[in-house]
């Protein structure tokens, strides 16, 4: 044990398991084995259900029901995917989901960037109070808003027009994300303020400052907020279920439980597969934003 004094690890290898530890067979096999077991476990648990879904999406319904774990016992059936896309009208609900996600994204970006800019850089006298009010909503569970928000959509104050079945009922409330505003404000707080002073001396107004300097500088955080805004909209279920009552206007997530009851298992699983394809491809492309943003969530909440 004491021999270790003579083995200083290079700085980049300063880790829980040091370079010396790795050379000891007990640890090498123990930790290495545990890591390989973890990788296998992650493949089975994380990827397994998706692989099964992909397999079953192109397997005849009868085979999936009688032999769910067999690999194409009677050949494949690509007709499931076609039936899902056209007969079940997944194409329509898919498009609805895209439109809803785009509007929610736009609303969140507009609110978060303008509010973050005003609260962090323009700093009006009442800014601290507003920041406090925004922060407070972070601590209010979403369920508290559900019923009054629903009634507000059915019977809006001042306007005598129900917003049920209108996409505005999804887009506008999506903008009220305290998390986004706080994230933006924190990011703007850390931008070099000398640049703003320089721009101001050169005669840039508030709008010019926002559009030409602050927005281009905040591309990384805009990426993170965008990825999470679109993903959250794609995942949303309860709120669109309540306010979008017309099936033709509903997004995929709201339609899926009904489709489950009305279609053969093979076609339904093909539908599920299509519904999860976009988030998974998006995740694979923007992996860095996802994983960094996930850690960011912990950092902000801390």
């Amino acid at each position: 044990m004491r021999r270790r004094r003579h083995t200083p690890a290079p700085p980049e290898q300063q880790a829980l398991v040091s370079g010396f530890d790795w050379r000891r067979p007990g640890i090498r096999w123990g930790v290495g084995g545990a890591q390989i077991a973890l990788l296998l476990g992650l493949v089975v648990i994380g990827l397994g259900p998706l692989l099964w879904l992909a397999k079953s999406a192109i397997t005849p319904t009868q085979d999936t029901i009688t032999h769910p774990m067999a690999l194409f016992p009677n050949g494949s059936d690509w007709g499931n995917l076609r039936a899902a896309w056209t007969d079940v009208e997944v194409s329509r609900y898919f498009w609805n989901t895209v439109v809803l996600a785009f509007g929610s994204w736009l609303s969140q970006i507009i609110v978060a960037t303008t509010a973050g800019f005003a609260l962090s850089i323009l700093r009006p006298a009442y800014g601290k109070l507003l920041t406090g009010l925004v922060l407070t909503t972070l601590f209010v569970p979403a369920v508290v808003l559900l019923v009054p928000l629903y009634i507000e959509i059915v019977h809006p104050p001042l306007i005598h027009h129900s917003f049920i079945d209108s996409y505005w009922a999804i887009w506008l409330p999506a903008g009220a994300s305290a998390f986004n505003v706080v994230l933006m404000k924190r990011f703007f707080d850390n931008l070099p303020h000398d640049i703003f002073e320089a721009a101001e001396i050169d005669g840039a107004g508030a709008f010019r400052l926002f559009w030409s300097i602050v927005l281009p500088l905040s591309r990384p955080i805009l990426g993170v907020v965008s990825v999470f805004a679109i993903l959250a909209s794609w995942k949303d279920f309860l709120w669109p279920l309540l306010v979008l009552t017309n099936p033709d206007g509903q997004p995929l997530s709201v339609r899926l439980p009904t489709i489950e009851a009305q279609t053969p298992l093979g076609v339904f699983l093909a539908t599920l597969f299509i519904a999860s394809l976009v988030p998974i491809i998006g995740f694979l492309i923007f992996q860095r934003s996802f994983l960094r943003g996930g850690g960011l969530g912990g950092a902000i909440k801390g």
Partner: protein
Amino acid sequence: MSALQPAKPVRRTEGNGGERVPVVARESRRTRSRGRRTPAGWVRGGGLSALLFLLPMLFVFGAFSWYPIVRTAIMSLQHTNLVQPATWVGLDNFRAVLDDPQFPKAVRNTAEFAGLALIFGYPVPLIAAVLMSEVRRFRGIYSALAYLPVVIPPVVAVLLWKTFYNADSTGVFNTILGWAHLGPYPWLQSPDTALPSLVLESTWANAGGTIIIYLAALTGVNRELYEAASTDGASLWRKVWHITMPQLRGVLLLTMILQIIGTAQVFLEPYLFTSGGPANATLTVLLLIYQYAFGNSLGGDYGSATALSLMLAAFLAVLSVVYLRVTRSWSTT
């Protein structure tokens, strides 16, 4: 900057510039208070543009966040059916909820869900994250695999697992367990196994997010301490226990309360898997709120729904405060 400042009447970012540069701060605060006296001075001082930039937030938060929060408190004291004008009924709604025989059942199920979710879902992500942070090659593949279930839409995940939970002997899980001559198990169809089945899916769907938070926290652990401990001959276990864990304590305590707050509001799983059944075995507080407000086609009992949601929010607030108090005293000793 200070030389130019008096020559420029329009100072939109003066507050900002002022706080960063003390010399200007004294000067600009004086001139600002002079400029603020008249509306024209307020506009020239940048007050108008700040307000314009705040408009989207003021509208969206006012209409869809602050107003509904206040409205919940009001509605919990009223009887509303959207047709007749609302009437004040005092605490009747709260009494009605407390007298509802389904209420204790829902509370017990929710507590059981939260407790089981802690047992299933709390230690595993921590162990996985500590192991993953020591992976030398392909670390990206580990975290991508762990995070994959999180990006799948929850509705898709629940409906997919509903297929897995098929109680026939040819269901997916029953087939796999059948290879080991176990089962078939009834999963969602028995009051005894329904709730744990829901927790299992929920854990699968959410563990990846916790792992990523732990991984981020692990990068902040002071690495020099590992080196020092190695030099002093500390074993791997002692390094984990005495260096890694104490530095993760803040994050660990935080994820625990966040997980409790999250699972106390579980809705999607009981709604889509079992609709609260069998025999109310998976009726949760949020499902009860949903049933009060939207479950009845004749019109919602919005008073009871808001009363119960306020009670849940108040409980979670008290729990968080007590939790923070207690854990703070732990970390000082």
